[in-house]
């Protein structure tokens, strides 16, 4: 994206006066006060105020979560994170089973969705012609538009019986010696939640990966093909590595979605705060416990413990998202350099 200098940016080309650190940190802060026309100044300040609301809201959310979890933070400290007992009756709150459930279900989801999504992206960018690639990409993006409660509905009535009656016997027969595939299966559990999450995050991986793969310069492919590589070798050695940080970015974006997903997981994970080795066993996730118990929190400490789980979830998704965005920005910068 190379824009011609925009009229009001022409000033930016002139040597800037050395102002205080605040203006150096954010040059356009001085902007509204430099514009000659009062209308320009007013519109600039008005829209700037609304643009900054993203910051303000993120900060406000963090503050509100912290202030409403203070009782639990003070009482349990870091023990909250590795305590395994969640017993509202005896005022014992440890979030480890929920952390475990969230991480394991998201992990299963990525294990399935990443190869699948990347495979689709490679097919759409390397093999399919444009008239086929675009509509299929749109169809896959529609998967992201399906509300999570509808996924939950399908999960309860289709996926749960399927996992219980069809998938479990097969897995037990072939891989039953592994502890993760042992024990009885009720249909609801980690594995079911992971599979459902995988379907939900595939579009995020596919859509972004396809875009970065398509942005890989043709010269990369041509160089590899000219050396006698097959198309697959070209893809594996020249195209995918070139787009690596974008592909990783799409994975982190999908991870962030999976970590925070609430309804579909709540409906199929089984909602039992235990840590079990078997993936067939029911579990619980951070988002699910908030959804289930929030309106039942009868005393302040209970409510604060639930909000603290929300705070942890908030912090984790922000870190994962920030990482994803940085990786995506790196790709954008790289492709901008190539175009120059």
């Amino acid at each position, binding site marked *: 994206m190379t824009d011609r200098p925009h009229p009001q940016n022409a000033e930016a080309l002139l040597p800037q006066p050395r102002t205080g650190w605040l203006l150096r940190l954010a040059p356009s802060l001085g902007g509204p006060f430099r514009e000659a026309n009062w209308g320009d100044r007013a*519109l600039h300040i008005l829209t700037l105020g609304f643009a900054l*609301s993203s910051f303000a809201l993120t900060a406000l959310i963090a503050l509100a979560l912290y202030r*409403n979890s203070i009782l639990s933070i003070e009482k349990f400290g870091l023990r909250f994170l590795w305590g395994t007992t969640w017993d509202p009756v005896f005022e014992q709150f440890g979030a480890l089973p929920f952390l475990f459930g969230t991480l394991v279900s998201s992990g299963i989801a990525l294990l399935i969705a990443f190869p699948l999504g990347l495979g689709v992206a490679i097919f759409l960018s*390397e093999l399919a012609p444009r008239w086929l690639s675009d509509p299929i990409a749109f169809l896959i993006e529609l998967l992201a538009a399906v509300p999570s409660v509808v996924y*939950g509905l399908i999960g309860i009535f289709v996926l749960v019986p399927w996992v219980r009656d069809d998938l479990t016997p097969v897995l037990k027969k072939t891989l039953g010696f592994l502890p993760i595939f042992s024990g009885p299966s009720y249909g609801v559990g980690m594995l079911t939640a992971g599979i459902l999450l995988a379907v939900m995050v*595939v579009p995020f991986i596919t859509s972004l990966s396809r875009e970065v793969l398509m942005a890989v310069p043709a010269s990369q492919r041509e160089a590899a093909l000219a050396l006698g590589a097959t*198309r697959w070798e070209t893809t594996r050695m020249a195209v995918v590595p070139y787009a690596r940080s974008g592909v990783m970015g799409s994975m982190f974006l999908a991870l962030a979605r999976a970590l925070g997903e609430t309804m579909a997981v709540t409906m199929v994970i089984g909602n039992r705060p235990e840590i079990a080795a078997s993936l067939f066993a029911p579990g619980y996730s951070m988002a699910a416990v908030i959804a289930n118990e929030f309106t039942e929190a009868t005393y302040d400490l209970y409510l604060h413990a639930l909000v603290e789980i929300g705070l942890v*979830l*908030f912090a984790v998704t922000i870190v*994962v998202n920030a990482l994803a965005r940085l990786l995506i920005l790196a790709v954008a910068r790289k492709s901008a350099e190539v175009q120059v």
Partner: protein
Amino acid sequence: MSELKYRFRQAKNYVMFSITFLCTLLTVGVLFFILGYMVWHGASSLNWDFFTKLPKPVGEPGGGMANAIVGTGKLLLIAALIGVPVGFLGGVYLSEFGRNNRIGFLVRYATDILNGIPSIVMGIFAYTVVVLPMRRFSAVAGGIALGIMMIPIALRSTEEFLKLVPNSLREASLALGIPQWKTIIRVVIPTGFRGILTGIMLDLSRVAGETAPLLFTAFSNRFWSAGWLQPTASLPVMIYTYSIAPYEDWHRQAWAAGLVLLMLILFVNVVSRLVLRRRLAMGV
């Protein structure tokens, strides 16, 4: 030997690309399975009562979800009143004043982060700032939660569509001596209006399906809600409560509600796609 190796590389080429093709088939297949299953189960459960009647008392078959349909409309109205102005004006800033400066960059980054915050956390936020002080669940609280969720996508899609307006239009207007604010209001925004409107429709369709932020803000209601400050039923929450309940007839109604919600959302997505022929549905 080298002939054999060449054959092997060729075979690997075909096998691997076939696998990527199967991946695609599987993923698209899942979408069609979901659509087909929803239509098959939902259409047979759908009847006129669903749209016009209130829910019957627990255990009694029949009834509908008229209150939830109206409730979802009310929640979306409040959400739009919050999300659209903030997102729209913020987007104008990013496109017209913050294109190449650091504030623009930081706002973009913060907006993407805000977009990634889990919906359940938005619910907690609305609970702490609206429900706790007012001591009651209300449509307003749910609408605020959804409205905040609308902001990031409204903001980024407005920015994207205003950026599509060619600079020559801005320059032509400025060259006539028209001040920049008037140029933005009379030239830039009207040119990008159709795109902005479509972006906002997509944004609304996305929050229309949200359940988690409503569970403890708008809560639910088995009757007509008595006002904007009363607990209000909504389609997604009804689907959730009905599907985890043990009654056969409730499951039937959950399918019907799921079908109505899904069709509404897919309709908006497909229409905007036709209007724009561009990818923006996901806010990625």
